[in-house]
């Protein structure tokens, strides 16, 4: 299970050798989900779990450090809003966030293509 804490630890370990390998995976997932629609923290965690068929999951609380980091980087904005009698912070992607999402998606595809090629070669 890929929790936020696990990713942070792995990111530190990978930094010296290949900073772009796992660095930014949680960021990519969050930005990708927010590109579709505005969401709040609990919804994002649930959506990641459901859409990755529980292959990836954030620790419940670990989403907030990422969201606040993204907000400080002006990649997302937040707005407190009442829906169904509950007040929640809804996060929305900004133009900067969309640009970052494109960069991360390209980078991720490059890495996964490389890994896939290597795995295919081993099987052949």
């Amino acid at each position, binding site marked *: 299970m890929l929790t936020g804490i696990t990713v*942070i630890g792995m990111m530190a370990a990978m930094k010296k050798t290949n900073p772009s390998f796992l660095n930014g995976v949680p960021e990519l997932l969050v930005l990708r989900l927010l590109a579709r629609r505005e969401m709040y*923290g609990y919804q994002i965690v649930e959506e990641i779990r459901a859409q990755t068929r529980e292959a990836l999951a954030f620790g*419940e*609380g670990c989403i*907030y450090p990422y969201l606040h980091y993204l907000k*400080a980087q002006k990649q997302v904005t937040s707005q407190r809003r009442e829906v169904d009698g509950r007040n929640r912070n809804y996060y929305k992607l900004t133009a900067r966030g969309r640009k970052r999402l494109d960069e991360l998606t390209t980078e991720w595809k490059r890495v996964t293509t490389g890994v896939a090629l290597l795995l295919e070669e081993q099987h052949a």
Partner: protein
Amino acid sequence: MRDFIETLRRRLVELGCPMAQVRRLVQEVADHREDLKQAALAEGLAEVGAEVRADVQLGDPLALADHLMAAQRRSSWWGRHFVVTFCLLPLLAFPVLWLLLLLLEMSLAFALGYGWDSKKLHVAVNDPVTFHCFVTVFHFMDYIALALATLLFCWLARRAAVGLKWMVTACAVCSLLTLITWGKIEPHSFFVGFTVNSHLHLQWLRGAIPLAVAGAVYVFERRTRQRFLEKVAD
């Protein structure tokens, strides 16, 4: 509910998180906890069981607070490069800031006192009694400029969430710099310098100003946190 949220809140306050941020973060995590609890209740768990499961799912509140603060540190350049910002930057920026603030204050005093009329000013400085007042006011403005320049680094430390240690470090660097920067006025002249000048009066007082600012900010922060926690506890 109270234990988890209370522990998170206290830890954030202890780590020096700004109060507005604490309120927002705690509210958000409390909302998340409520969602987890509702999900557990929907699955048929009892109230107490649902609360326990929500707490377990959220994890350790102390670790969560640490991660939230780490995220805040990483989100600013100042927070990521705290050694550069709070040890090296003051060496360059503090004297420049001090000088700019001093010039600004002198310009304001000139505008308010003499309405930008240099002739009036020239007449005034020829009077020894008036000039003595000028010197006193100049020293006062010098101290204010030092305090404001130091305060800027304190504000930066708070904003970057790097903690008291780095704020005090920046203030100590500023304090050392005050010992080698000086300003002086004479009739019709104004001097600034970057040398050790033992002839200047009250140089030790200048050196004490950044440390006094650090102390005042520390006491203020401590009281604000204390009051915040008391208010929340009520």
